[in-house]
């Protein structure tokens, strides 16, 4: 697994976990990808570097649908 960046972004509902690399706080679009935010925190935690920052947009996050990986 490749750690993308020290700072990653989460935008649920308007982003794409598969295409986006979470390095930019932008919604997903075909033209913006891969420089867009991911949709889930779990995906962001996979992409962020050790000691990095996960920036989460305002939304509802239902726990149980994602888990954080052990470091």
């Amino acid at each position, binding site marked *: 697994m490749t750690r993308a960046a020290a700072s990653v972004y989460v935008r649920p509902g308007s982003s794409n976990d598969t295409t986006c690399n979470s390095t930019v706080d932008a919604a997903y679009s075909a033209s913006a990808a891969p420089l867009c935010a991911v949709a889930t925190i779990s995906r962001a935690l996979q992409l962020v570097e050790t000691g990095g*920052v*996960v920036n989460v947009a305002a939304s509802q996050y239902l*726990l149980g649908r994602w888990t954080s990986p052990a470091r």
Partner: protein
Amino acid sequence: MLNGPNAFISPNSGVRAPEAVFTGAGAQLRFTSSNPANISIQGFTFQTIIGMLSSSGVIEDSSMSGVVSNLTFARSALQLHRLPLRRSMGSAFFSHNPFAQSGRHLLGIARGQIEFGRDLLIRQVQLHQIETQHPHLQRLMMTFKDRLRQIIKLALTGLTFIPLTFSLLRVKPPFRDLRRPTPGPVRAFRPTQLAKHFVILGFIHQMLDVDQHGTTPNWS
């Protein structure tokens, strides 16, 4: 570090932006790290979360509700949930349950350091600790094995103040419950009932009436 929309909003003077809310009934948000002290969660709203971090950590600028454990809070707005008292109407509720009166009368229990409300009267004087070589005629005297010794009259003993070294529970009933009956409070531990058994502290009240030579004044 997990930053929400209000990660850098001051809880005192700032206006919070729309929240990123963690929710889920009975869910657990668990972070594991080789260095848990580096885990930082800021600017979120947490609802119904039990068990947040695997060890110590910091949550900042977050509005929280629900039950959270193993956390250090910094600049967070906490919403504490009221825990409803157990309400059961079985027979044991009114007889042997020590919380019967608490539930019946909605008594408030406060723990604190309580001292005696009044002084205690010394009822016993250790005679062997008091002696005199020059007894006065107006003092009550009695003979001991080797000499005369003075007896301090009980009425002259002073009052002593004895603070408690442990905490007690103080129960203050609300005014509306002062006259509400409590059925069968056999082992209830708080007021609004008469004591079932009168317990008297073991003070020794002993008066010595000694007239050694027929000349000692009567102090009583």
